[in-house]
């Protein structure tokens, strides 16, 4: 009850502060199982995308957040786990651990997830090459839609190395869903997924 209220307040606060608009360019909001994947510009990303999602979608979507940042204090952990329903994962997984296991479990339960395949926040304007987790999930759940998301302006809201939030309006652009093509290799798929986000960065509609 209290958590639900805090959650609601957080969304309102974020919308007042940075706008958190959503533009559905390549698909419509839906409650079906999806893997949203977005570029990573600031720690604010997770909150901004979640605030941009309409409530029925938001409540079924779990963002993936870095444990070293979001688990670092009680407040951050509360925001991440309680308010954002985030799954905290280790960015440098120990050998033989299964970092994707919690995500697989969520997808099996019919939930959607939000991941940042760049793995770390980009320092320049380039979108970094994607790490392979998204490919493994896509192969494992072939019927789940992979929706590219581009977050505009977030780097300017809270750049790496700064604590100061500047209230510039952010937009989350959702592109057309993709899936792994038959026989498509890991490298080719990751390249294509990254391109889908790059196309959205230009404001255009991703080609399907």
């Amino acid at each position: 009850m209290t958590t639900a209220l805090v959650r609601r307040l957080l969304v309102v606060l974020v919308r007042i502060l940075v706008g958190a608009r959503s533009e559905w360019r390549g698909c419509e909001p839906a409650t079906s199982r999806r893997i949203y994947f977005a570029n990573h510009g600031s720690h604010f990303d997770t909150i901004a995308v979640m605030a941009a999602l309409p409530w029925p979608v938001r409540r079924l979507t779990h963002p993936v957040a870095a444990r070293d940042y979001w688990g670092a204090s009680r407040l951050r952990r509360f925001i991440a786990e309680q308010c954002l329903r985030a799954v905290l994962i280790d960015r440098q997984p120990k050998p033989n651990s299964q970092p994707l296991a919690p995500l697989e479990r969520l997808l099996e339960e019919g939930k959607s997830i939000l991941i940042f395949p760049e793995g770390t926040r980009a320092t320049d304007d380039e979108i970094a090459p994607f790490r392979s987790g998204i490919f493994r999930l896509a192969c494992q759940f072939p019927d789940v839609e992979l929706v590219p998301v581009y977050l505009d302006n977030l780097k300017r809201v809270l750049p790496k190395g700064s604590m100061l939030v500047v209230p510039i309006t952010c937009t989350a652009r959702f592109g057309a869903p993709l899936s792994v093509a038959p026989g498509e290799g890991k490298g080719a798929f990751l390249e294509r997924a990254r391109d889908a986000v790059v196309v959205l960065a230009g404001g255009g509609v991703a080609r399907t």
Partner: protein
Amino acid sequence: MSVTLLTVLVGVVALLTAASLVGYVLEISATKPEAVATVRNLNQRIGSWWVMVIVFGGALALGHATTIVLFALLSFMALREFWTLTPSRRGDHRGLFLSFFVVLPIQYVLLDVDWYGMFAIFIPVYAFLMLPAVATLTGETADFLARSAKVQWGLMLTVYAVSHAPALLMLDTGVPGALLLTYLVIVVQLSDVFQYVWGKLIGRHRFSPNISPSKTVEGLVGGGLSAIAVGTLLYRLTPFSPLQAAAISAVIVTAGFFGGFVLSAIKRDLGAKDWGYIIEGHGGVLDRIDSLTFAAPLFFHITRYWFTS
């Protein structure tokens, strides 16, 4: 709230009711697709006007402090729209933070505490020198001059200029400041509305297709003259004689026109059609208060120089 102010607000509400009725009639009679689109936009605009009049009238009725807070929020949203479209670099981050959360609040607090001297120079002297100084600390020199200019211009338009509208509340002219502010807002905004209406009705010759494709010479002249006429008729809200009111309305209308024009030129430069999306049918806050940015400081200083004791 004084009787005069109440009369004016009743007049505005009557005008809006009439506009809503006209919009309703047009909506039933429009058949061509482009006419339907124009009428839909017109009705969105009228709907937004209701909201804006209620918010502005409400703030004014609640007193000076509320009015100042309202304009501070408008500045905040306008500055945000400015920086959402204007590119910035990593090195500007601290300057932007200070613009939003230090300079803007201080400018409006200075209004609230009636410190005119500091209000007039705080942004052009202290903020304009301090912000580039802060930017040097990051060591980033690429585009330094252009970046400093953008930070300053953003504050100038959206905070400094806009704050001169509520600054009318601190002038001692013998009439309540709320009336002067209402007068300014009515003349500026009606000038925009009349230009739009005249342009739609008889507009033929584009004034400057490059900068503002919808502005026509006919709209400009017809709208300007109509607004000056209203400004003259409303002279009782001000310390001016009818003739002075006509002249000052002409200044407001001309300044307002160029305010809209300059902000349109900036928009074109940045490759955008509207500043934002928050006011349905109009665009952003900055699309609505663009004329005010130029008209408010001029009106304030003319009134302060010639009409205060």
